[in-house]
Structures are given as structure tokens and as C-alpha cells.
């Protein structure tokens, strides 16, 4: 896919602290790109530089081919931003906030009115259109936040920890909105500490640690990097498990914590998996439970970000 955002050798220093260190990131057009990292890893700084809100100490970022420092004005026209907190006018109503954003963007009256109507409908804000933002629930405010980022129909929407503070249902609802938006053609650049959120949303992930990208790629490839699938069999007893492990050519090993259980790390080779399943099939009468576990983003995070 074509790169929409290209950060090259990006460094940002605050005093003596290096928030970003010669970081390279490529965000493909049409992707849902998630930046993962613990507190202070540099996620927000990276997003703020891409959004033209901060200037890099060295290196460069191009959005849609425009440099975010020397061609900031052009780059900004491609970006919608939903910052970490609900950056909204608490005393205005949703329609007033959307209209004002349209004014700030230089849209004419008719286009503003049309866009406000469209976004109110798209995010189901109709019943709240006249309520003050301060009175809205966290989930509704977050939807409005996203709607404001979309007023200009940007090519990429940047969301900094978008579901922090939302209840589980509101989070799922918000993820659905983001996926729908992405399917309609908008690229998403999201920072989060929530591994489940990253797993649900990401088509690509960059893991940041101490201002550096320590891994970047699709979630599946990152998972493969940090571990293999594990096939676990629970057998009818300790003796059966020991006999099974002893006879296994696929490499099943007894679980030291559970005498009735055997495990196998299945390499990324279909023949190895077939062999393991054949052995399991031969012992089917003794097996009480079979479980195939993929490595999770938790494993990725522990292995890469929190090292």
C-alpha cells in the first residue's frame, strides 16, 4: 500500500530527555495503524509531531507527501485529530461544536450545515444535538470528539488513547465506529496502552520503547516473532500423559505443573501441526481437552515493550 505517513530518523528532545530517538515509522494508506507502548514511551509525542502540533528536533515526517514542518499547512488539511482528552467546548452543544470546527476549517455555511447533519446522523448524536457537551456521557463525548476530527473529511484521523475512561460497551461501540470509518476509506493512526484494543483494531502495529520503534508490522507477524502456537492436551490421568509424552515423535512434553497435561510448541510449519494432530488423534480416547493457543499481543508487549 502507498505510505500515507512517513517518519524518518525522527528525534524529539525535551531539555535533556530524548522522547523520540531516530524513529522510523511508515503508515500505509487505508490502514489502522496502532502505536503501542507504556507510559512515557513516546506515543503522544509521535502523534503530536505527525499532527503538526510539535516540531521534531531532527528528522522529518511527511503526511501525504507534505513535510509537517515546511509544508505544515498542506499536511494539516489531510489530518483529523482526536486528542487524548476530550478536546471540546464544554459549554457548546454538539451541533455548535461541529459548526465551529467547520468555520475554523474555512468551510462555507452550506457545506458546514450539511457536514454537521451528516456527522450527527453518522454517530447517532441526534437526541443530544442541543445538549451541552459537559452534560454528555463519556461515550457520547468521545463520539463527538471523533465526529469533530472528521468535519474536513480527512485522509487520516489521529486518535490518542481513544477509549481511555470508557465503559466496556461504549468501547466496543466506539471500535465499531472506527472500523466502519476505516472501511469507508479513512486511515486511522491510534495510540493506546490497551492491548485488547490494539488486537481488535490494528492492521499494523508499531511497538515503542524509550522513544524507539522496537517492532513494526501486522499483529500476526509480531505475535509470531515472540512465540509459537501452543497445543495443549489434557489426558485421563498422569500415567496416560507420561506415556503419551514418552511416545511422542512430534515433541509433546509433560507439563511440570499438571501431571495429566502435555504441551507442544507448534512451529509455523503445517506438516509439524499435522503430525501433532495425528498423534493426538491416535490418543483421542484418552484426551479430555484439546486447546490450541496463539501468542497474544500481551506476549508481544511483554517481550518487546516492557523489556
Amino acid at each position: 500500500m502507498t505510505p500515507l505517513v512517513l517518519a524518518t530518523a525522527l528525534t524529539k528532545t525535551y531539555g535533556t530527555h530524548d522522547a523520540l530517538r531516530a524513529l522510523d515509522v511508515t503508515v500505509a494508506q487505508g490502514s489502522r495503524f496502532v502505536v503501542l507502548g507504556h507510559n512515557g514511551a513516546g506515543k503522544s509525542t509521535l502523534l503530536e509531531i505527525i499532527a503538526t502540533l510539535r516540531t521534531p528536533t531532527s528528522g522529518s515526517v511527511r503526511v501525504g507527501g507534505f513535510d509537517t514542518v515546511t509544508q505544515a499547512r498542506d499536511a494539516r488539511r489531510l489530518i483529523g485529530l482526536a486528542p487524548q482528552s476530550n478536546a471540546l467546548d464544554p459549554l457548546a452543544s454538539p451541533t455548535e461544536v461541529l459548526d465551529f470546527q467547520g468555520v475554523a476549517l474555512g468551510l462555507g455555511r452550506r457545506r458546514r450545515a450539511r457536514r454537521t447533519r451528516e456527522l450527527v446522523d453518522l454517530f447517532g448524536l441526534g437526541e443530544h444535538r442541543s445538549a451541552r457537551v459537559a452534560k454528555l456521557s463519556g461515550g457520547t463525548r468521545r463520539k463527538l470528539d471523533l465526529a469533530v476530527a472528521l468535519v474536513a473529511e480527512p485522509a487520516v484521523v489521529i486518535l490518542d488513547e481513544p477509549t481511555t475512561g470508557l465503559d466496556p460497551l461504549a468501547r466496543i461501540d466506539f471500535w465499531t465506529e472506527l472500523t466502519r470509518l476505516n472501511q469507508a476509506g479513512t486511515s486511522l493512526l491510534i495510540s493506546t496502552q490497551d492491548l485488547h484494543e490494539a488486537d481488535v483494531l490494528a492492521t499494523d502495529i508499531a511497538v515503542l520503547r524509550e522513544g524507539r520503534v522496537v517492532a513494526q508490522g501486522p499483529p500476526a507477524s509480531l505475535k509470531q516473532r515472540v512465540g509459537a502456537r501452543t497445543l495443549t492436551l489434557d489426558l485421563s490421568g498422569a500415567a496416560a500423559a507420561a506415556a503419551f509424552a514418552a511416545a511422542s515423535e512430534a515433541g509433546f512434553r509433560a507439563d511440570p505443573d499438571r501431571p495429566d497435561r502435555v504441551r507442544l510448541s507448534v512451529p509455523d510449519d503445517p506438516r509439524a501441526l499435522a503430525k501433532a494432530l495425528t498423534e493426538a488423534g491416535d490418543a483421542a480416547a484418552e484426551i479430555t481437552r484439546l486447546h490450541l493457543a496463539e501468542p497474544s499481543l500481551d506476549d508481544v508487549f511483554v517481550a518487546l515493550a516492557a523489556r
Partner: protein
Amino acid sequence: MLPLAVAPPRRSPAPVVLAAIRRSTRAVLRTPALLVAPVAQSLFFLLVYAGQLDAVGGTYLDGTSFIAFLLPLILLTGVATGAGAAGTLVLGDITSGYLDRLRLAHGSTTPFLVGPVVAALIAVVLQMAVTVAGAALIGYRPASWPGVAGMLLLMLALGLGVALLSMALAIRSASAPATNLVTLAVFGLSFFTGVFAPVDQLAGWMRVIATVNPLTYIVDTARQLGGGTSLTAAPVGVAAIVTLAVAGTAACALALHHARKNR
């Protein structure tokens, strides 16, 4: 070039400035603390001071009504409180990240700073109108209404300086206590003028302080405008207001420059 959705190029800044003024005015009108509190404070001082000292003041003011003497100072304290709303509004937009978002959308912060200043001045005009009406109800009779209009314009110009300075502090500090310093300073200094009596009738150290206090000349110019007398205090009073407004503008420019440099 990529086939990207692109927002239209920006037009003149005028619609953005007007919309920012409307938005900030709406915010002031929807925030009782910003609009009602200064009015209540002005009316409180007016009623308490006039009620307690009107008869006494009449004995040493050479025929000037005590309420007419008191009114400019009451207006000044109201302006100090009311114009500080500009800083409060900008501070809210800075701390929530909304100002960054608007800057990203428009490309410049300036229109979104003009809005709060104008809105604060609109609030100041409303506060002064209510205060003058309140004074009229308890016996204030100006020598000339054009003189009263001049007094209000003078106070409005002072309000501009206060608004700009409070906004500069909001941008530079992003902290509420620092933003409120200008209001506190002007409010406090206003009591080191001839509050209840002309400066030449004050005694000792208070007279010295009042003589060097620039607010004394602003209050005296307002009294002279309201009373229709010779504007002897005007050169220093107007110079003080112009200095405050210029300092406020420069402080805003410096604060914005500092913010840009530290991005």
C-alpha cells in the same frame, strides 16, 4: 500526489474571528461566574459604601455627590474582575487541548484569542451598564451623560489591557492561579487610590502610594469625565491605560512566541 480527501483552502480570517467572538460570548453568557459575579461584586460595593458613607462623604467633597465620586472606582474593580474572563476562557481551551485542535484546523491561533478578549469586553460593557443603572437607582445623577460614556470608554480601554495581560499569563503559564494574578493585582491596587476621598486629602504613606499609583490617575480621569470638570489627570491616566494595553499585546506576542519555540 496521493488521491487524498483534502479540505478546501482557507478563506479570509474574518468569518473565523467573528465565529470565535460569538463562541466566546456564548461561553461568557453561559457561565454565571464570569458574568454575574463581577456585577454582584460591583453592586455590593456600591450599596455598602454608598449606604454607609454617603452622608459623611458629602461633608468633604465640595458639593460632589459621594456616589459620583465612588462610581469610577467601583467600575474599575468590576473591570478588573470581568476582563480577566479572557484569560479564564483561553486557559480552558489550552488545558483541554481544544486550542491545539482549532489551531490544527485553521492554521493559526490568533482568531481564537481575539474571541475571548472581545467577549470579555462585551461582558464588561454589560457589567458597567448594570452598575451605572444600579447607581442611578440609589441617587447617582451625572453632570453629563456624554461624560459618563467617556468614563465607560476609559474603563473599557483599561479592560482591554487587563484582558490581554491575563490572556498572556494563561498562554505562558497554563495555570489558573497565574492567570488570575492580573485581576488580583489591579483589584488590590485600586484600593491604594483615593477610594473615599481625593488624594490630596489622604494622609501620610497612603497619600504617597496613591500619588505614584497609576490607577489613581485613571480613577481621577473617570471622575473628571463623569463630573464634567477639567481633565487634569487625563494625560497620566490615558498614558497608563495605553501602556497597559501595549504591555498586554507585547506579553501575548511573547507568550505565543515562547509556546511556538517550545513545541
